[in-house]
């Protein structure tokens, strides 16, 4: 039997607001434990939550970027469960009326566009952090648990996809695209390794063609896109093997073990947790008027998908459009400016994602002396034969080093090609006279000898001759004498 995987992704995005979701405490992960805390985020008796407007703007931006409907009156609920790092022993979250619902995200996999539905995006608060000390950090063997409430109350957006994803590769692309969007919006640091964006996957399998959903397994603890893909691949294979061996799958949460390369059951009692959700009576419904939504919409930056489409429209092939779209804002800004200054898109793309990016990496500095106009000018120097492609790289170095306009750099560094027919004609005649053997062979039909002759002229001119023009002059000269 052939199997189909059904995958949904839950994404937690920590918003990089200055203060926490329901109090004025500073969000700062580097701070000493329990220094950014107050009665509200410590859950002291009598303390009350007040929502952070910036966080609401953040989730609306995410919702809009994911083509969601924005709820005019959404509701904060309490999710009740006891845990030492959850100070109130309930988490303020959203339940049946989230801020954002019914959106989608288009992702490109193997040249195909796949639409992944977004069920919802809701606002909630983060918990504190537990560190189990003694005996390897495992909770059951720990001698003590240290609690740090600096993270308690940090605004979190949870984005829940529909189970529209069919492969581990698709899941990876979805996650990458979502991360790129959140980073572009500037609402989160969106760093996987630091946990400011976290992906959990719900994976099930079913016979190809079936419409029913199989038993769902949630997998957690993937700290990179690669581990997300590997974990899902492993899980799909595990489930297929289990079912084919006649085993019954259980609904559970499994932990991805990066080193072992497998998912492990967390042995928690699934389905037994009852969070007793109810509307938080300390908060009133969150009202988001349409004009607020429009105000936020008008400030949204260009998103990766829009950008790719725009680049493709400018004449970049899809792969290049994707590379450029994922490039740094500096490179993208220079690209747009260079095009404004008349540069052709493919050449601007090559220079910026090639030489300029390599230079930035090598020197670990920003190309502050480069402008779009200079990029366009450099390209023009090459296209009009003023400098050779090789010499142009040197010109770029000079421009990046602050030596001025490309033309001035080319001249100062003596890199301008000799393109004057009269000036080159003498050198060509000298070379032809000194290499009669080669001239004979050429005349005898040995076409490729011309390369040798061009090389000799280049040598004669110290490399500054325009090789195209030299080639032309040699042909003309030999044809004329014949």
């Amino acid at each position: 039997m052939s199997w189909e995987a059904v995958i949904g992704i839950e994404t937690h995005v920590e918003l990089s607001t200055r203060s926490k979701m329901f109090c004025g405490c500073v969000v700062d992960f580097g701070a000493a434990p329990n220094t950014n805390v107050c009665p509200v985020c410590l859950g002291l008796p009598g303390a009350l939550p007040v929502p952070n407007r910036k966080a609401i703007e953040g989730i609306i931006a995410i919702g809009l970027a994911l083509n969601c409907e924005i709820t005019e009156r959404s509701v904060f609920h309490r999710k009740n469960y006891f845990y030492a790092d959850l100070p109130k022993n309930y988490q303020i979250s959203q339940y049946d009326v989230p801020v954002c619902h019914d959106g989608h995200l288009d992702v490109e996999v193997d040249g195909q566009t796949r639409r992944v539905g977004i069920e919802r995006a809701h606002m909630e608060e983060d918990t504190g952090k537990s560190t189990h000390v003694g005996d390897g950090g495992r909770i059951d063997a720990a001698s003590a648990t240290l609690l740090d409430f600096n993270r308690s109350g940090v605004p979190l957006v949870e984005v829940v996809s529909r189970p529209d994803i069919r492969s581990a590769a698709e899941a990876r692309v979805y996650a990458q695209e979502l991360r790129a969007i959140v980073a572009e919006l500037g609402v989160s640091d969106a760093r996987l390794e630091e946990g400011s964006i976290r992906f959990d996957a719900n994976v099930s399998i079913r016979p190809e063609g079936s419409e029913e959903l199989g038993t769902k397994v949630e997998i957690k603890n993937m700290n990179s896109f690669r581990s997300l893909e590997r974990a899902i691949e492993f899980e799909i294979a595990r489930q297929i093997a289990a079912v084919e061996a006649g085993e019954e799958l259980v609904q559970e949460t499994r932990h991805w073990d990066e080193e072992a390369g497998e998912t492990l059951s967390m042995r928690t009692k699934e389905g037994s947790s009852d969070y007793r959700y109810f509307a938080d009576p300390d908060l009133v419904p969150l009202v988001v008027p349409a004009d607020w939504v429009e105000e936020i919409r008008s400030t949204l930056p260009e998103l990766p998908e829009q950008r790719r489409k725009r680049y493709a429209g400018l004449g970049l092939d899809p792969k290049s459009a994707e590379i450029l779209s994922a490039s740094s804002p500096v490179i993208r800004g220079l690209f747009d400016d260079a095009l404004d200054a008349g540069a052709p898109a493919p050449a601007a793309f090559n220079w910026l994602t090639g030489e300029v990016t390599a230079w930035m990496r090598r020197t670990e500095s920003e190309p502050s002396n480069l402008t779009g106009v200079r990029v366009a000018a450099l390209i023009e120097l090459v296209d009009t034969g003023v400098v050779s492609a090789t010499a142009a790289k040197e010109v770029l170095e000079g421009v990046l080093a602050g030596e001025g306009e490309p033309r001035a750099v080319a001249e100062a560094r003596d890199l301008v090609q000799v393109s004057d027919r009269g000036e080159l004609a003498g050198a060509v005649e000298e070379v032809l006279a000194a290499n009669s053997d080669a001239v004979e062979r050429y005349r005898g039909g040995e076409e490729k000898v011309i390369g040798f002759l061009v090389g000799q002229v280049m040598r004669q001119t110290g490399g500054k001759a325009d090789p195209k023009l030299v080639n032309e002059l040699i042909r003309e000269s030999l044809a004329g004498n014949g």
Partner: protein
Amino acid sequence: MSIPNTIAGAARALRDGSVTAVDLLESVLERAHLTEAQLHAYLNIDRDGARAAAEAADADLAAGNDRGPLHGIPIALKDNMCTRGLETTAASQILAGYVPPYDATVVTSLREAGAVIVGKTNLDEFAMGSSTENSAYGPSFNPWDITRVPGGSSGGSAAAVAAGSAFGALGSDTGGSIRQPASLTGTVGVKPTYGTVSRYGLIAFASSLDQIGPITRTVEDAALLLQAIWGHDPKDATSYPGPYPDPAASLGAGVDGLRIGVVTELAGEGYEPAVESAVADMVAKLQEEGATVVEVSLPSFEIALSAYYLIAPAEASSNLARFDGVRYGLRVDGETTEEMMARTRGQGFGPEVIRRVLLGTYALSAGYYDAFYGQAQRVRAAIRADVARVFGEVDVLVSPTSPTVAFSAGARVDDPLAMYLSDICTIPSNLSGDPAMSVPIGLDEQGLPIGFQVMAPSLGEETMFRVAAEVERLAGFDARPEIPVVAG
């Protein structure tokens, strides 16, 4: 030197120089010294802090810095309001020794108004009860008869005001916890419109119902105290932004031309005849004064109590989850974190709190939510609609505050349902969010106070106080309890 009985009188005396804030405080501390052994109104009297505040108030006033009518007045706080540096327990073992690092907004407001905070008064644990017998630190007793309860849950505040060991006090009212003890102790008690007094720093019982309010000896004093504590608070998301009514604007304006509704459902079986006849007499007097009296029926009031005992425990089950031994208060160790939490809560909470947490947890559970909590919310909506309809026809509603006068200590402790019925007249206003207050109108044949309840639509405090002031004038109630004094 004669010490005035009321806040308004004391405020005048302070300004004409006949008394000082220190005099007022010492009179209150002396009263407490003579009566606390019998009443146990206070859990904690902050003598040093209060004396320092009284001296500062005198110096301030002498310097010409008059902070208004509460300046220099000794006020008591129910011990579920957080006071920076002063132990706050909500009368629970689980918070024994807990000292908050911050002041509740009402406490800040009182301090800014120059009030002198005398101490923290007794209550039913976490404000759950109607007799102040559920305190982990022992019950309070009624100044009118020390074998009887003072009502609850703000029984300590009411007893202190009735006994003269505070000029006024703050209580909190979730289902009648200000009004019912006011009724049982012959004091004035006000539950303001929901959202007008900040809940920031009030240890929550049921957030959608809790409201802080004053307990005083007169209607005017209640208006003065209310004005000092209410107003928009950005720290409370449910706080009303304004504009606010002026509760003192129409005191003395009488009731001529007002339409008063007598609630049919708040009478009959379970109501003591003395209470019913006192209330009827007062209604007749109001009519003589020119009010139009009509009988109104609010059928939803019949099921208010049932809805309340699902909503309040449901919210409480979640609000009280934070008391787990992890960060503050009592901790009873266990082998695992879960065991530590369970033991802490099992030992730290009293039986009534445990009963309500269990009830509330059950009401919110999957599979029961709709039948219990969901249904209770629908009843609440029906009560709101019912009340809104009736307030289209009348200006205020009146009823007894409590079906009975103060009952004997111990009489209802083993019968939770009988205890719950103490709040049958007061609960509807909590569910609707509307203001209501209790005014003493006389004593029964045993010499026990009877309270008269005035209910108004949301933000209708001006009219409510206007009617209450007229009730007070017509009742001419000025009796004071005689508390047997135990030689100290």
